[in-house]
């Protein structure tokens, strides 16, 4: 599908900790991830698993008390963690942009949409006012918003429109990578779906890669190329979306999938996952999911599993130890698209 599948993002051993009141809490633990251009990667997990923190860490947008305590983030070969402020700023928005969860909170309430877009344009390109206006209208049209709303304030737009305006703003420079933090959570179900369709269509049209964080697996099932499942700050499964849905390997992934019914299939009893995620200030000694895992064994509680490569799918579970080749997590892998 892709003409040239070059790797634009490589995350190696990224760890993020929160340092407040003395006790450091590791929210993201040694995460590896690669992304090729035009690829759509979804990151899924429950609230508090670290997926949003990971996202902001990648985009270098963490605020105290959160900070990156280890690892690298290579964007087009350059390690963003060690870049200076001005070097980072030259990458921002032109090559890497961000879409946040709630446009009502992410858009400055006292400025018009036009002014906010203009800010971004002025910060990165030497454009005349007319050029800025033209480009702003263009991106709004891309997301099916009438350009007359350019001069509206965020509170004057509907929820769906605000969200799309935020996406339009992210596309001002047609970046290579757009990072999205649950952009559909604030919308109703119908709007969610239509927004997803629009995002996918824009992605195919303009050719950018997407990292999409969500708690709703079903939402991304038709749109993402690969899917990464996170639990308690760690990657527990990573592979092609279709494979995860058809043959989920990790018990947690299986639990997630079994928790929502198929609209076509027979009525089955809904199964939740009993228990709750561990306290990251005091993570358990063995596998972090073992207290809740229906297939846990003795050894699961004692020894933490490494990320294992099972036939193209990465899974962090001792059940697959024999069937896999142990993969040192620092070894580079070629990301695959279906």
């Amino acid at each position, binding site marked *: 599908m892709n003409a040239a599948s070059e790797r634009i993002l490589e995350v190696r051993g990224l760890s993020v900790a929160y*340092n407040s009141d003395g006790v450091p809490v590791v929210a993201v633990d040694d995460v590896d991830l690669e992304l090729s251009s035009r690829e759509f990667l979804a990151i899924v997990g*429950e609230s*508090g698993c670290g997926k*949003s923190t990971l996202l902001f860490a990648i985009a270098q947008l963490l605020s105290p*008390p959160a900070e990156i305590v280890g690892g690298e983030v290579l964007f087009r070969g350059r390690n963003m963690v060690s870049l200076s402020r001005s070097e980072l700023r030259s990458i921002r928005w032109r090559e890497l942009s961000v879409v*946040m969860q709630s446009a009502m909170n992410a858009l400055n309430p006292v400025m018009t949409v036009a002014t906010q877009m203009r800010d971004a344009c002025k910060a990165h390109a030497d454009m005349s006012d007319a050029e800025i206006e033209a480009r702003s209208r263009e991106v709004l049209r891309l997301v099916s918003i009438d350009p007359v709303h350019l001069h509206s304030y965020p509170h004057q737009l509907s929820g769906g429109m605000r969200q799309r305006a935020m996406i339009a703003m992210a596309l001002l420079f047609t970046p290579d990578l757009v990072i999205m933090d649950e952009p559909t959570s604030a919308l109703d179900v119908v709007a969610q779906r239509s927004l997803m369709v629009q995002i996918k269509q824009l992605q195919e049209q303009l050719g950018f890669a997407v990292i999409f964080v969500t708690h709703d697996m*079903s939402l991304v099932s038709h749109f993402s190329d690969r899917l990464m499942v996170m639990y308690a700050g760690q990657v527990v499964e990573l592979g092609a979306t279709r494979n995860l849905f058809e043959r989920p390997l990790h018990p947690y992934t299986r639990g997630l999938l079994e928790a929502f019914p198929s609209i076509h299939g027979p009525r089955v009893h809904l199964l939740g*996952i009993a228990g709750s995620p561990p306290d990251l200030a005091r993570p358990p000694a063995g596998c972090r999911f073992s207290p809740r895992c229906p297939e846990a064994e003795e050894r699961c509680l004692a020894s933490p599993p490494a990320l294992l490569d099972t036939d193209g799918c990465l899974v962090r579970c001792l059940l697959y130890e024999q069937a896999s080749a142990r993969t040192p997590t620092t070894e580079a892998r070629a990301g695959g698209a279906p």
Partner: protein
Amino acid sequence: MTTPSLAETAGPSTPAAKAHPPETTAGAGAAANVLRALTRNRKALAGVVLLSFFLVLAIFPGQIAPDDPTAEIYTPGAGPSAHHLLGTTAYGQDILSQLIWGTRLSIVIALAAGGLATALAVLVGVSAAYLGGIADGILSLITDVILVIPIFPLVIVIAAYRKNAGLFTLVVVLGALGWSYGARQLRSQTLSIRSRDFLEAARVRGERKLYVILFEILPTMTSLIVASFLGAALYAVLTAAGLQFIGLGDPSSQSWGTMLYWAENNEALGAGMPLWAIAPGVCVALLGAAFALMNYAFDEISNPALRPVRRSRGAGSRT
């Protein structure tokens, strides 16, 4: 379609929680929380120490003060000496004793007027939010009007008609006028929790409105009520001192404000008795500071984002 097994709260995109007062559903638990929070915060500790110091002085003035504060038997206008640590007034009274005896009145005014104002604030604020509708509209209007009218001139007007306002008048007037700020805050806080689940649960259980207010709503607002009280006490201390200073209190009473009044009347500063004017002012300032520090500490406790932060050199601080 969201998976039911994933407990999803509208996640804050920053991990540091936005301002939320510490919630408890039991009165005793709330008090314990408050105490624990107070002792850990340095500012709160400083405030508590100061306040305790003055409380001791207020309760045991006879044992601590070296002299009878009203006895005009010493050399007037003397500077500090071994016998009179702070010197004497123009009438020959020992300044230090006056200071110590004066603590009682100031503390009483602070606590009583502050308490009255807070009680009224809770009454008006919570009722307005809970009752809603026209009652809320009227109560809010009254609150806003009183909030805007400057209390000090109004109290002066009242005191002008009623010369030499004694302790009781002062407390009642200050308390009856100083509740509006607290009422506003309590009202908005009550509004925000009015639709919470635990209140619905109480209603469904058939609990009476009064029960709901007293035992379900109020405990969650303990920190706000305490903060309100501290603010009201501070305002009472400063306003009372100001009133006494300009001579509208009872000039024969023993208080820091009246000391300042007499000092000013006798040109203490220019006549070489500066301590007479400065010392009571220091006490007012310190007592006020005690309340202010505790109040500020409460702000920090209920909003963790305000707590002191150490600047790190990590990626977090980069723009």
